[in-house]
Structures are given as C-alpha cells and as structure tokens.
C-alpha cells in the first residue's frame, strides 16, 4: 500500500463480500424452488427471492468496483484520496440503502421492474451515493493533476454508470417504451460502461502483475473500449426485438451484438500478450488466477454464450427461456465477479500488511477452482435446461408446466453444481475474513517503515 488512504478499500471489499455471501443463500433457495413443491411459498415466494438475488449482485458488484477504484486511483494519480471520510460515509449510506431495499423486498416493498426493483426513495439515495463517489474521485485526480488512461477508463466507466442510472428514474405509461428505456440502464451498464470498468481494472492488474509496458497496454485499451461501444450501443437492440419496436432493430441488433465477442476476445488476447511478454512470475499467484480467469470466463460466458442466442432468428425461439440464465450467470461471473475478486485478491496483502509471498494460497486456490468449476457446471445445467425448454415448449408446443416437469434432472444438476460454487464462495470469504489477517489501521501505518508493509 503506497498511500495510506487506499485503506478505505478494505471495508468496501468486506461489505461487498458479505453481500456476495448473502446473494448465494437466495440463489440456492431459488434453485431448490425449481424442484418444487416449495414449502416457503407463503413466506418467501420465488419472486421476492429473485429480486433479492439480483439486487444483491448489483449492489455488491458496485461496492466492489468502488473499493477497486479507491485502491487504483490514488496509485495511478500518485496522491492521497481527497476525502477518506466521505468514502466511509458513502459506504455506510450505500450499505444502509441496500439493506433497507432487501428487507423491503422481503415484505413486498418493490417497484416490480426487472433488475430495477428499487423503490423510488432508494433509487434517489443511490444517485446521491454515486454523485458523492464521483466527486471524491474527481477531486482526487484534480488535485494531483495526473490522469492515466487506465484510471481514466475506470473512472469514466463509473461516472457513465451513474449517468445511465437516470433513465431508470423516469416512468412511462406505455410498457413498451418503459422496457426500451429500462435497457438504457441495464444493457448499457452490463454491456457498455461496466465493461469499461472491467477493462480499466484488467489493464491495471495486468500492468501490475506482469510488468508489461504501460504504453502498449493503454493503446490497446482504447481499441477494446472503442469496440465495446461500437458493438454495445447499437447492440442494445438485441433486447428490443420483440418489445413492440420497428422492424429495423432486428437486423441492427443482430449484426452489432454479434460483434460483442470481439471485445472479450480482445481482453483475452490482452492478457495472453501480457503473460507471453512477462510470464507468470508475480508472487501473488491468486490474483493472477482471478485476472486470467476473468478474461477466459467472460470470453466464454459473455462472448460465446451471448453470441449463441443474440441473432434475431435464433432469439425468436430462445427468448425468455433458460438459455438466458445460462448466458447471464457465466457472463456476470466472468466479467464482473471475477474481476472484483481479482482486485480484492491483488490488494489484500497490502491492505492487511502482509507480503505477497507470505499469503497462504491453498484455501484461496480452492476458492478459485470450486467457483470456476461450480459456475461451469451451473452454466451447463442451465444450457441443457434451456435447450430442452426451447425444443419442447417453443418448437413442439408442449405446455410450460409440462415442460418444466421434464427439466427436473437439469434442476437437480443446478442444485449440485450451485452448491459447489457456494462452497467456493464460502472459502473465499473465510480466507478474506479469517486467514488474511486484520486490516492495516492508521496506528499500525504510523509505525516506522519495516514494521508495517510499505510496498513499492
């Protein structure tokens, strides 16, 4: 840790991981509900569990991104953070809003709009949090008068994420129009500005982990982000196809979203190039695993599996089936979960004042492989369920409920592989909270160099 204020990343990561753990509880519950009958149908029906599962994901990833940014920005701009106190306040506010929202969902307080279930007061608090967060980063960079391309991409991604949340605040009487603008937030987040955040964090990690030349990396970062927007902005149309929009969106959405895998191919090549140049010599092997893992899983999950059903002629049959769950789970895991875990793993030795070489790797590696294997299995279970559903329900015309009964074996696989995944998450949390050591405090940082880990 070069700058004392990077310390604020620790509570961000801690909150993010706790919410990640909670998200798993609801995920497993939902998988079990697919097997039915559901003994909790009157206490916690599927719809509430799902709203909580997806909202926790969004909140903890955002908290993780913010923690990552608080680690990266001081280091890139070579300065202390403008206001650590504001950062702590922001975290408390965001966490409180998140907890209130989750408890609210349990009791049916919801806006009932997919992925944007947050009731209006919660949405407004989120806007405030994002504005304050942006203010803190901008003031830090402004004071240092130093902005690298890597952090520029990361910060621009976070700022645009805040701006693109605004369409979610508007209400439309026409459901079709509302659905179109809902995608301005949801799609342009996950297939636009969040990819910027991923690319920024990835560039930072690769530069640090492999020591590869910054000039080259940042040049290609422009190309990757350029491809993200060329494919992603017009690619929004692949969500429009059947909403009641003009027909020209079908070929446009098909063509441009088919380019989206190029972004992930670019990131994978990026990582490959960095390793070719400098090898895997960095002592933080765990962070290397998660970083490379992120490029592989996002290329597969977001790239290949997204491409699998993005063409309008295919999507016509697969739209609204488990094919979407297949793509969604691996894409989110690869692109966003793994990059946040990579950032956490990379920063953890610094945050806890230990040396990379001394970090126990066994539990961490098990966490990595159980999560990777579990997610691969879950994706396969969803894929089998989705293909069967498409064939039986959409092509042969067998009723929805009768088809679901025939998918039971895939849901059993989902519960098993999901449990493996959750075990991996539990190990990651155990490693973070119990094995990694206590976080560095202001007092321990004040000790003379050598006692605390001041690493170059």
């Amino acid at each position, binding site marked *: 840790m070069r700058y004392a204020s990077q310390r604020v990343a620790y509570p961000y990561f801690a909150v993010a991981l706790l919410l990640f753990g909670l998200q798993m509880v609801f995920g497993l519950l939902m998988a079990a509900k697919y097997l039915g009958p559901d003994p909790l149908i009157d206490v916690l029906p599927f719809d*509430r569990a799902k709203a909580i599962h997806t909202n926790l994901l969004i909140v903890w990833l955002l908290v993780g991104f913010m923690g990552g940014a608080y680690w990266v920005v001081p280091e890139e701009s070579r300065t202390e953070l403008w206001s650590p106190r504001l950062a702590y306040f922001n975290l408390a506010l965001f966490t409180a809003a998140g907890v209130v929202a989750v408890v609210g969902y349990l009791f049916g307080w919801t806006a009932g709009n997919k992925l944007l279930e947050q009731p209006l007061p919660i949405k407004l608090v989120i806007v405030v949090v994002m504005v304050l967060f942006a203010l803190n980063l901008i003031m830090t960079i402004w004071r240092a008068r130093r902005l690298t391309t890597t952090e520029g991409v990361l910060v621009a991604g976070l700022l645009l994420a805040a701006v693109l949340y605004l369409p979610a605040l508007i209400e439309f009487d026409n*459901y079709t129009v509302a659905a179109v603008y809902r995608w301005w937030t949801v799609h342009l987040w996950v297939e636009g500005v969040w990819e910027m955040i991923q690319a920024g964090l990835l560039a930072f990690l690769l530069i640090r982990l492999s020591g590869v030349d910054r000039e080259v990396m940042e040049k290609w970062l422009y190309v990757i982000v350029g491809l993200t927007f060329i494919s992603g902005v017009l690619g929004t149309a692949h969500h429009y196809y059947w909403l009641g929009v003009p027909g020209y969106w079908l070929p446009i959405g098909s063509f441009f979203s088919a380019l989206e895998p190029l972004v992930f191919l670019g990131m994978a090549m990026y990582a490959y190039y960095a390793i070719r140049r400098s090898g895997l010599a960095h002592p933080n092997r765990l962070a290397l695993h998660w970083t490379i893992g992120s490029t592989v899983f996002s290329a597969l999950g977001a790239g290949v599996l997204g491409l699998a059903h993005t063409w309008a002629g295919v999507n016509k049959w697969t739209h609204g089936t488990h094919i979407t769950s297949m793509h969604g789970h691996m894409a989110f895991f690869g692109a966003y979960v793994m990059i946040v875990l990579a950032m956490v793993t990379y920063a953890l030795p610094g945050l806890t004042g230990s040396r990379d070489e001394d970090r126990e790797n066994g539990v961490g590696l098990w966490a990595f492989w159980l999560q990777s294997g579990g997610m691969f299995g879950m994706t396969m279970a969803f894929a089998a369920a989705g293909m069967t559903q498409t064939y039986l329900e959409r092509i042969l015309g067998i009723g929805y409920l009768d088809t679901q009964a025939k998918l039971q074996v895939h849901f059993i696989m989902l519960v098993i592989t999901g449990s493996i995944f959750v075990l991996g998450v539990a190990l990651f949390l155990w490693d973070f909270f119990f094995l990694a050591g206590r976080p560095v405090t202001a007092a321990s940082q004040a000790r003379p160099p050598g006692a605390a880990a001041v690493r170059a």
Partner: protein
Amino acid sequence: MTRRSARRFFYIGTALSVLVFVALTIDSHRQFPTLTNEADLTPSVVAGKNVWHAKNCINCHTILGEGAYYAPDLTKIAQLRGDAYLREFLKDPSRFYSEERDGRLMPNPNLSDQEITDLIAFLTWVSRIDTQGWPPRPILVRGSAIPGANIGGAAPAAASDDPVALGQALFNAQTTGCAACHSIAPGVNLVGPTLAGIGARAEERIRAGDYGGKATDAAGYIRESIVDPNAYVLTGVTYSSGGRSLMPAHYNTLLTPEQIDQLVAYLMTLK
C-alpha cells in the same frame, strides 16, 4: 496502430454509434403509437400496469419474453384465455393449479375486483402489441400440443381453400386461440373440454333433456357454442363459474360469418 489512431478509433466509433442509436430511437418514438396501439392506452390499462409492478409479477413470469423463468409467459395470455377465465383465475389460482399436480402454484395475489379488471385490461393491451411475430408459436401454460392437438404447425393461411382445411388453420391460429384450451385428442381435457368426437357428441347433446339452446342439428350446436358459449354450459372448475361459461364470448365479432362456417366445418369432422 499508433496510440493516436487507437484513440481516434475509440472516439469516432463511439460517436457514430451513439449518433445512429439516438436517431433511430427518435424514429422509433414516431412509430410507437401505431405499434403499441397507444389510442387504447386507457387509464385502466395504466392502472393495470401499476398492479403488474406492485405485485412483482415480473420476478416469476415473463411478459414480452422479459422477466423470470419460474412461471409461464403472459404476452398473449389475454388472447389465449379470455377475460372471464382470467378473472376467475386471479381470484384464486389454487382452484386451477396445484403444486402436487403441476409442480408450481401461484400464490394468491389478493387483488380487488377493480385491480383484476385493470390487470386484465393491461394484459389485453399487451397481447395486441405488434411484437414482430413473437412468439412464433403459441406458448401454452399446461397441456400439450401432442398427441393430436397439432398446435402451431399450421399458419392461419391454409394449404388449400377447402373449408375444413381453412377451419383447421383457424382452430390452430394464435388469433383465435382455440387450440390453447381445447385438445382434439380423446380424453385430453385442457382448460376447456376436449373436442375429440364433438361432431358426434353434439348430436347427442341437443337431444338430451337438459339442453335449452336453439340448435336443431350438430352443426348448429357447434356454431352456437362458438358465438354464444353461455347457451349451453358444461360444469367444471376451468369450464364455467356460477352457470356462466369461462370461454371468451368475442368470436361473433372476432371472426367473419364465413370463418365461423369454416370452423364449424372442421369441428364437424371430429367424430
């Protein structure tokens, strides 16, 4: 590629994409009123949309294919099931489905009569949105197109101009929705009774003592059942409620007299 050209690629590519995207969005707004029948967007439809959101329906069901995959898609449900059926269903879903039999059950949404009216108005409006032909075949809730029901294979335009073939195409078409509730396989009762053998059964029914309709022959009985489902009501939880049939009563206006003739001709062949 130099750093400068990489940066130029990013700025120009992004700017062009955003420009095209915004221009097409503006053009879409020009077309939304037609594509979504904005003229029919009554206060009741909007109120129904609010019920849809307040009850978190989208986190189990899909609508326009968007939502969760725990319950059936409802895009065309108003066309497939009709007003009367949906009203009874929404009052108490457990009368129609059970966890033991179907694996899933919808919790009672506890809606007032007004909320039910609004929700059905919303779903009816949704079912008429021009969805570019989606879904390509009707998505059924329960039951099956096999054996015998032959759903989805035939498009509304039939292969010949034989009235029976035209009637069969109509029976399977999404616009009529007949096949979504009636199987033509013997003994397969979906939401509505099976129509296997209806051509023969109609004859017996008008001769039975409890028949109070106006039909005098089998074809007349079938025609009467289509245009006025309440003329003779079958008892059954999903068939009728309080002596009133749950079948949509709009076929008189939905179909031309010629089309009704074709349907009758087709159903008369089921003996």
